[in-house]
């Protein structure tokens, strides 16, 4: 069963195409990774899937609903962990969780139980009454993941979940994502520019570059089709460049500039 369906999705900013006619499907219960360099259009795509941006053209179905016409139904269906922190630093960890539960209209008896369960799970229960501004980057990320799960979403979006995390927290996070996926049969859609991340946790990998979807398939399929030994090699063969390529083309610089202005 398909839980995400995207057809011919396009997003243009003042004539500049950030997402260029992409189509894909995500099956219920799978871990799906968008792999591509910075500025490839990953975050723009997530924003369109999660009702934050209006597509220029194309159609999207999330859990059977359209993020354009049925925003609230779509918003009930997913949880999201953004690339940049989105917790309220002036509130405590516990208050952030309570706030989220209230936004999703969860009854206090139920939310109380879930909040303590989730905070214990991400190892923040002992520090629940501290203001979030005193937390480290990793702790904030863990809090955001816990928060994104309070309302038991069908789909969890993770935008660059391990960006800026230390290896230990990263490993913990991967283990945890896999567990959530298995236990709750939760569909996970993540974006990453780390080969290792896509390799280790994703069932299906979609390679995206310059706003275009280059190839989609399981790790084995990608390797087999490109006759490569590793994902890195497959990526190189498919896109013609390394993911960590340092010299940016004028087009990349333009994307970066847009990104700095908060548009991508």
């Amino acid at each position, binding site marked *: 069963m398909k839980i995400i369906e995207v057809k011919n999705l396009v997003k243009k900013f003042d004539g500049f195409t950030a997402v260029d006619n992409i189509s894909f499907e995500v099956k219920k219960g799978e871990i799906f990774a968008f792999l591509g360099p910075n500025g490839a259009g990953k975050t723009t795509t997530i*924003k369109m899937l*999660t*009702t*934050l*941006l*209006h597509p220029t053209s194309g159609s999207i179905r999330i859990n059977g609903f359209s993020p354009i016409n049925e*925003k*609230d*139904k779509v*918003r*009930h269906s*997913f949880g*999201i962990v*953004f690339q*940049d*922190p*989105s*917790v*309220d*630093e*002036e*509130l405590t960890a516990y*208050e952030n969780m*309570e*706030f*989220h539960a*209230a*936004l*999703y*209209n969860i009854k206090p008896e139920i939310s109380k139980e879930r909040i303590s369960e989730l905070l214990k799970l991400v190892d923040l229960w002992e520090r629940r009454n501290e*203001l979030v501004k005193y937390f480290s980057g990793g702790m904030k990320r863990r809090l955001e993941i816990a*928060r994104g799960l309070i309302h038991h979403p069908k789909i969890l979006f993770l935008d660059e979940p391990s960006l800026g995390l230390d290896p230990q927290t990263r490993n913990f996070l991967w283990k945890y994502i896999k567990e959530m996926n298995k236990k709750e049969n939760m569909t996970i859609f993540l974006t990453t520019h780390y080969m290792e991340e896509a390799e280790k946790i994703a069932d299906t990998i979609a390679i995206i570059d310059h706003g275009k979807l280059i190839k989609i398939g399981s790790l084995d399929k990608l390797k087999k089709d490109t006759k490569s030994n590793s994902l890195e090699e497959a990526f190189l063969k498919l896109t013609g460049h390394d993911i960590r390529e340092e010299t940016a083309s004028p087009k990349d610089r333009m994307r970066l500039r847009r990104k700095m*202005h*908060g548009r991508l």
Partner: protein
Amino acid sequence: MGVIYIMWLREIKRFWRSKARIVGSLAQPLLFLIALGFGFGPIFQKAGGGNYIEFLAPGIVGMSILFSSMFMGIQVIWDRQFGFLKETLVAPISRYKIMIGRTLGGATIASLQGVIVFFISMLIGFKPHNLFMIPFAFIFMFLIAVLFTSLGTAIASRLEDMQAFQLIMNFLIMPIFFLSGALFPIDNLPNAIQILIKINPLYYGIEGLRTTLTGITQLGLVFDFFILGSLAVIMTIIGGHLFSKIEI
């Protein structure tokens, strides 16, 4: 209702935790009260205007509410920069409710500051003419606060950076303040300026405060209340509309 309450609660909690904001927001009205009140007091008296502090105090209460409520809008820009705005924008709730909760929270804080300034003005010599009218003055304070918090939030919804917001605010706040009748009586002013004052929403707020606190009225309390109340509602709706259109 839950959403409005939780947004309101958040504003209150955040404000309560930054004590510097509470103290800082009182410094300016206090300075105005003392410098202008005592500075112009004798001249005002000589010219036959009566006690200037009596005239000025309601104006300064209105000013303190105007300043702090307009700047409440900056919270939206903070939330945008710190990312928290996204959390509220992907939630399955009406953005109008988010906006209303924010506005009521900001307005509660701004009117609370107005109440404090009111009590300070009593310390330096202001005497309300009728104690039973004070609750009505508080209602006017809240309406002024709602009107200008929603205006500030509406403007902030369209902006992304802090500097632009501050620039626009100063550009707006000063004329609104000076042309509101807060500092001087408007009777003998040139016609053009009188018209400017009469299209200024704050004028009706200050009038309402002055009527409830000193008993001297020009337009009548019901009229002031009606104008200010309708403007507050209209502005909240406009603000809610602009807020609901935010894309990130």
